């Protein structure tokens, strides 16, 4: 524990700015993954434990496409779409066969998929750490804000993810498709009796989850090292986020992700050994005080 360092940090504006922006990008990337986990759970009542592998695939795909095309924009789009297609295949071919089974059976299936993907990634891209490097478009001098350093890419990432969060929130609460998704979450039998193919909705939700996770992996590639197995901590953190925010709530996922991001970035200064512990502590407190999560419905 290093409380003096933490006290030093929160009294200096430059340290607050630096830590907050790094906390925000952790949180924003986490949000993209957690929103998918939360939506899939809300609609299908299945925890997609392999969601972290979607994130990993996004990072590796962007690595390859960027290497081939030299266009970061194209690479990000290709990675997101690629993982969306993978999500669709994963839902149709694998996870749809264990809907309604024991929770452990579902987790076991995801465990198998994670093992396969982690090994495949090693075979295709090699076992060593990879890094993408900052794309040329973002190699500009960072902004200075109250003495703190804010890289251009961080700002871009935060704004883009906020935009996606708002769009996703509106799509779910305001559109007809969003209404169908919410209805399936509550009563799939009634929805299919009304002539809507719930199978398409399930597959669509998985595609959307894949798209977001692939995007997260792609956007994380310039600021993270890419390695087989990188998805696991992300999926566990996503689960913590959905517990804190409330299952199935986009706003909850956003708030939960940002909380976790800030806890992580300030926690590394104050409690370097116990940063992960702080997240679990936060989750335990929420579970005890409000088991349905900050934005979850009671009951």
């Amino acid at each position, binding site marked *: 524990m290093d409380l003096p360092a933490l006290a030093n940090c929160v009294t200096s504006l430059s340290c607050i700015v630096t830590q907050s922006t790094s906390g925000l990008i952790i949180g924003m990337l986490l949000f993209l993954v957690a929103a998918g986990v939360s939506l899939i759970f809300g609609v299908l009542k299945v925890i997609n434990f392999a969601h972290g592998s979607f994130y990993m695939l996004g990072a590796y795909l962007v690595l390859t496409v960027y290497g081939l095309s030299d266009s970061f924009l194209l690479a990000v789009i290709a990675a997101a779409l690629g993982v969306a297609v993978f999500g669709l295949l994963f839902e149709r071919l694998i996870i749809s066969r264990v809907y309604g089974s024991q*929770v452990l059976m579902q987790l076991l299936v995801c465990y198998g998929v994670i093992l396969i993907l982690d*090994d495949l990634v090693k075979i295709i891209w090699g076992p060593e750490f990879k890094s993408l490097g900052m794309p040329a478009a973002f190699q500009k001098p960072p902004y200075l804000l109250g003495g703190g350093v804010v890289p251009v890419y961080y700002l871009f990432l935060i704004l883009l993810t906020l935009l996606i969060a708002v769009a996703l929130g509106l799509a779910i609460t305001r559109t007809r498709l969003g209404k169908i998704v919410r209805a399936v979450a509550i009563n799939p039998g009634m929805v299919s009796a009304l002539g809507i193919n719930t199978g398409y909705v399930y597959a669509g939700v998985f595609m959307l989850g894949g798209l977001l996770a692939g995007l997260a992996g792609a956007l994380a590639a310039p600021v993270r090292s890419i390695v087989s197995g990188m998805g696991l901590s992300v999926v566990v953190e996503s689960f913590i986020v959905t517990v804190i925010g409330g299952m199935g709530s986009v706003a909850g996922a956003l708030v939960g992700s940002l909380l976790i991001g800030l806890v992580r970035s300030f926690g590394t200064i104050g409690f370097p050994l116990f940063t992960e512990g702080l997240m679990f502590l936060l989750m335990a407190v929420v579970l005890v005080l409000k088991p349905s999560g900050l934005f979850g419905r009671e009951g």
Partner: protein
Amino acid sequence: MRTSSMRRDCLIALIVFAALAALPMLWPSRGVSDFVIRLAAFGIFATSLNMLVGYAGLESFGHGLFFGLGAYSFALAMQRLGTSIPTALLLTVLLSAAVAGIVGAICVRLKEIYFAFLTLAFQMLLHSLIIAWTPLTGGDQGLTGGVPRPAFLGIRLDAPYHLYLFSAGLLLLCLLLMRHIVQSPFGYTLRLIRDNPARATSLGINVWAMRLAAFVIAGAFGSLGGVVMSLFVSGAFPDFAYWTISGEAIFMIMLGGTTLFLGPVAGAVMLLLLNDVVTKLTEHYGLVLGLIILLFALGLRKGLADYLAELWRERSARRLAVPLPAAPFAEPSNKLSGE
């Protein structure tokens, strides 16, 4: 009735122990005795997980917490405190039970998916603590320097044959104790809670306390699996607390089946054999194991031992059913084909 079945179990355990003790004379191979020691570690561990999953209906995804905790606390007690092996065993079991008490108090009231992930989260917490607390645990290099093994009761664990006998004995002893627990009224209360918690509550059973007790017992036994492992490798490594340990244990009990008491041990034998064969043939262990898991989970959908037991039950039911039509009552076949 119950004492006689207990006596029968003890007798079987003694016979198996004698057979295992003779095995290295009949088949003197380092590989075989190492296999039995690893089987002891994972057999205890998987069976303790099955107490939760199969009997109490608590689907834990973080049971590896206790495997790692057992290995580290035993190895550390031997290295740092210089205690005797029985004292270190006792300390390990007590510590694991205490940790299980705290984790369980938070987790067991949660619904299944929350329970599964929260237990996993606690396991990852231990893993990150092990990695971070380098001065005590050796960090990601693992706890090296060997585990001292002072002799006790004439048992010298630095002799390979003694370690082999000790592991086999501990496995059988733990299996006997766990068997006794699940066959006790407490064990049947757990089954009732698994099948119908509302009914258990209406009968005046404190469901939360019973589940917590099961969690503590399973955690204490699970830590002994870690102890055997730390004696085997003479140290402790962060991988022992990694989530894949829980995944493997779940695969073992799914592979062996959750309805038979020895199903998890059968699953452990199968997975360890598979492990040895696959690592000999290819370096892409994860790929092959993952494919086998998918084939098994999407194809068979139940434990191999469960599957065989069901097949056998159906066959014997059919065999009994053939001569029976003449008989006025067909009770035996009903009983056998039931479930």
